[in-house]
């Protein structure tokens, strides 16, 4: 306890609000003072990260319940509340968000030169929205934050992006928005169902968890959530917005997109779609696992022949997220914990990869692999960082990627033996496309004149790369602190999933609502 009431009782709200305060503060700064604007933004995000460490400090790993809960009625007439909390599932995603923010701001010091003020304001709004997504435990509140992420990201791509930025931004927006609308419909259906069964309106997730939802209704609601989250993850075949968005976005945008935004999809599956509709989730499992495995191989193979480094990394994300989905839908402890850990790992590794690409892009203004070659000799520090990140991305033991993938496969092999065996070949392909790319960029002789004059990473770049490298090795060598804090929540999730599934299969007792009649009329 800090003795400051605000921090003691409203820590999560402080984390949500602080970036907004920062954004408001920026508005009062003169728009020409780029340096001040950047520094102020950086300080705000850094403070945000330091404060979020308090969450870890106060987190109790023994319990599965929501912690640091704040619950205030918001629109009491409709049962909508401002309810936030963290548990073992969301803790590390929250930490990943606050951790990655100062890093991206630092990286944007040099890469963003126009409309600096607006850029930083959008970044801070984005931070608030992302933190909100991971701590909201009220469906309505979650939806608000979920949509709130969309707007700043749309502008980040559309204003500060590359040549085809408008196309990419609109594609990103439409794709996600279509999903969101379906999700909204499902949320409303759930909301009215709860009223029909219990007689009260609520969007409190914990209350909704205890609801037993009829089987067929689960099917349709899950389908709606599935689309919303599958678009976001993205799962094959809904992934094509990703290469465009990743490639066109500015470095900072790509980093945030890869590190945090994609995790909103996988997190959504775990927190909402699977937890609320266990029967449907089980029914969908063969489909989802198959799509995940296709995504792993497909992403890896397509990545192999990309000419643009960013597109290559984007397709590798499709493969990595396939692993995450495979782990989550193993529906056992190792698989899900591996999946959550792999979300963090992907955030760290792929985020770092985009930073690495950004560093050479700033110097050469191209991302084409063929423009490089032999950089290892010119840029030794950069070569070291790039190598570590590459190895982490291909899941070499000793780095974070290995622990996550290994746990996922241990878990998934028990439930989906053949799928996992096929997915494991993705490990080979990952080595192929990453090492091939690394070789073409870093090894061999320097072929282009201007590559000889490149400057190695400067102090600021080392400063933001170093924490990522440390995390790569920390999770790779000693993941226990991360896993231990997930244990209780994931175990409770698995137990509740099984129990709720059985309850729903036994038939839902109360609540003969119109919706139920509609969905279950065939029974």
């Amino acid at each position, binding site marked *: 306890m800090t003795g400051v009431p605000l921090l003691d009782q409203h820590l999560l709200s402080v984390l949500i609000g602080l970036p907004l305060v920062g954004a408001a503060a920026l508005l009062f700064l003169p728009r020409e003072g780029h340096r001040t604007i950047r520094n102020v933004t950086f300080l705000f995000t850094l403070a945000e990260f330091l404060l979020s460490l308090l969450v870890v400090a106060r987190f109790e790993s023994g319990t599965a319940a929501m912690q640091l809960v704040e619950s205030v009625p918001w629109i009491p007439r409709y049962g909508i509340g401002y309810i936030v909390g963290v548990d073992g599932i969301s803790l590390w995603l929250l930490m990943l968000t606050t951790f990655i923010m100062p890093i991206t701001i630092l990286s944007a010091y040099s890469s963003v030169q126009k409309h600096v003020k607006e850029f930083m304001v959008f970044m801070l709004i984005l931070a608030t929205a992302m933190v909100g997504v991971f701590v909201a435990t009220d469906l309505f509140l979650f939806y608000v934050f979920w949509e709130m992420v969309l707007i700043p990201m749309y502008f980040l791509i559309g204003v500060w992006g590359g040549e085809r930025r408008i196309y990419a931004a609109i*594609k990103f927006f*439409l*794709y996600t928005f279509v999903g969101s609308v379906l999700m909204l419909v499902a949320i409303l259906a759930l909301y009215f169902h709860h009223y029909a069964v219990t007689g009260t309106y609520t969007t409190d997730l914990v209350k909704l968890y205890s609801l037993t939802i009829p089987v067929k209704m689960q099917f349709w609601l899950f389908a709606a959530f599935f689309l919303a989250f599958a678009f976001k993850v993205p799962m094959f*075949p809904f*992934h*094509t*917005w990703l290469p465009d968005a990743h490639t066109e976005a500015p470095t900072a945008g790509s980093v945030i997109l890869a590190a945090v935004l994609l995790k909103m999809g996988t997190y959504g599956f775990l927190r909402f779609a699977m937890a609320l509709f266990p029967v449907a989730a089980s029914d969908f499992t063969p489909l989802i696992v198959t799509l995940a495995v296709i995504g792993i191989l*497909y992403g890896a*193979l*397509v990545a*192999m*022949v*990309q000419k643009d480094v960013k597109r290559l990394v984007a397709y590798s994300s499709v493969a990595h997220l396939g692993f995450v989905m495979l782990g989550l839908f193993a529906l056992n*402890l*190792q698989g899900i*914990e591996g999946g959550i850990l792999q979300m963090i790992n992907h955030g760290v590794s792929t985020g770092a990869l985009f930073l690495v690409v950004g560093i050479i892009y700033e110097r050469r203004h191209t991302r084409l692999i063929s423009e490089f070659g*032999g950089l*290892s*000799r010119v840029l030794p520090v950069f070569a*070291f960082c790039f190598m570590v990140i590459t*190895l982490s991305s291909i899941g*070499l*033991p*000793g780095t974070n990627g*290995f*622990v996550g993938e*290994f*746990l996922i*496969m*241990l878990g998934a*092999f*028990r439930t989906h*033996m053949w799928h*996992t*065996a096929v997915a*494991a*070949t993705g*490990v*080979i392909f990952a*080595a*192929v496309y990453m*090492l*091939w790319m690394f*070789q073409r960029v*870093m*090894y*061999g*002789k320097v072929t282009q004149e201007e590559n000889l004059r490149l400057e190695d990473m400067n102090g600021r770049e080392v400063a933001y790369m170093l924490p990522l490298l440390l995390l790569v090795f920390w999770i790779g060598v*000693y*993941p*226990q602190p991360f*896993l*231990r804090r997930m*244990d209780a929540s*994931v*175990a409770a999730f698995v137990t509740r999933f099984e129990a709720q599934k059985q309850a729903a299969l036994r038939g839902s007792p109360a609540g003969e609502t119109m919706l139920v009649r509609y969905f279950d009329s065939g029974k």
Partner: protein
Amino acid sequence: MIRYAYLIPFLPLSSFFVNIAVGKRLPRKGDWLSLATIAACLLMSIGIFYEVFRAYDPNFRYHVVVPWLSVGNRFVIDAGILIDNVTAVMLLVVTIVSTLVHLFSIGYMHGDPRYNRFFAYLSIFSFSMLGLVLSESLFFIYIFWELVGLSSYLLIGFWFEKKSAADAGKKAFIVNRVGDFGFLIGILIIFSTCGVLGYDQVFQAIGQGKLSGTLLTLAGIGVFCGAIGKSAQFPLHVWLPDAMEGPTPVSALIHAATMVAAGVYLVGRVYPIFTPDALLFIAYVGLITLFIAATIAVTQNDIKRVLAYSTVSQLGYMVMGLGVGGYTAGLAHLATHAAFKACLFLGSGSVIHAVHSQDIREMGALRRKMPITFVTFLIATLAISGVPFFSGFYSKDMILAAALEFGMKHPQHMIFFLGGLFTAGLTAFYMFRLVILTFFGKPVDHHKFDHAHESPPSMWVPLVVLAALCFSFWYSGWFGTLIRKPASAANPAAVSSPAPAVPAERGLAPMEHAAVPAPSPSREPAPAEPGHGQAPSHGTSVAGEASHAAGPSAHGESLAEAGHEAHLAHQAHAYAMYSSVTVGALGILLAFVVYFFGWIDPARVANAVKPLYEFLLNKWYFDELYEATVIEGSKAFSRFLAWFDLNVVDGLVNLAARLGVFLSFLVGKFDNYVVDGAVNGVATVTISSGSVLRRLQTGKLYHYVFVLAGGALIIFIIRAF
């Protein structure tokens, strides 16, 4: 000493960190640090070996674990170390060769711009290799397995400006990953059925029948796939010859003596999980490998490539030896091979250093310029050729004996012995071809010859030490006693006998376990055989297999048969020894006839069998085959997928978007023309009909009269009909 064994891997790790970070600024660029840490490891390994040797117990075990990772309460992965006789020997092998290679590198790598990084890489290799040797579970051996792969990748591609070097590094890593894929599947099968990954726990679970039958065979083959990759067995042997792009000390340390032998070590480590079917598979892979590699080695002209193929071939011997049940034989060959092959590679490094060429056709007569290199190289060649009193004779002979014994029991598998024997002759031939062309005869390239010189002491001292280790008396006797074939985990006898579960001591307080599961009667040493110390192991292997084949009901019988089996082993061993000596002598003789005396012209022979020669020279076209099928195939498929992604998947998305836009366009038009049109339409109709009707009112009388008359006429006509 053994209590501090867990420190061993961390010593090189610390020097890696120091050297990679500040090596450049250290005096002598930090080479002494790497050398000192590995030398300390060597001293500790000697200490451990001394303790193990003093105990002189075939069942010696030292096993400590600490919990490392847990998911929930039930799933725990421990970190720990396991030292038994095999580990102790392997530690010694790794640290001796590694220390000598460090020493050699000081001279060999002198003046390289990335000198400090080279030593840093050597340190991380030593760390991973020692970790691999000490690990006590499949999980940790897999971790270090990949890490040695990483150090191999870094060191092969050490001169990354050369495209061939960068390519070779990548190839090594990827081919190994293919093997590791199988390894991973094996681990997953074991974990999903047994729920544990520690060696002892796995053996125990298999003994309890949690994993058996075909699945157990598959798991065994899966794990062995890792060895196929790392030990360069057919069909994944293609990476090792290319790996010679790395600096020569690296070839000696990693790609001859230690890392490539890790596959053999792995097979030895998890030996109890292999079913007879899996062992047969292993034996055939070994046989194919040893034969193919030896035939290729005959035709190569690059000194390092000849040695590389001979390494592949010798690894094939080890694998085959393990596969046919010669557990002791395979591991003994691992140890002896490490010494003589490291000596050969370092010797070749010394030659390359002197003449700046790798082509043996440009050498010749070097024995006069480099006497120490020559003598040590010759000793190592005698060892690999299987000449009596040299180490290779001792171990290769055991392998052939095991193969023959296997063949005598299963006549349909006599090919193991025959293939092994033929290849032994081939080995002697190509090795002496190498020695003669390099060191004997007349200098071919006088310019290179004149510049040749003996290497500095830091390079020849390791050669001398390694050459000294090429004599058989170092190995015979104790080796066969201390390293015994473990009983199969699925052995019914092992299950029925009250196998005391040996829980490893948790926490840091270590404890020595002398007890080992399943002291079945068949493990009694058979009557000792004079002459060679490995005889007990043969007796053991025979009896063990007999009891396995016979099952528990025939257990007593098998005891009675044990004497007969021991006799068989004795016989097999005698035959194997005579025939291998003969064949080896023939190979050496032929090499002298062709290359020394010149009685047969090799060029004419090559011309006479040109297709075969071309086939061998091109390494059986494996690289071309893989290039044409796997590599090009997957590239083409990837390109297709990329096209598919851009045009079909994304095309559908864009089509949907276009449809949306088109629909909006239609709606817009509809709104414009239909909805709005209806409103406007009413008005238009009124107006236009008005304008039409207006024409009727002309105001002229005769028009009205005409219409009136016409109307009356029509009415009249209608009425009339």
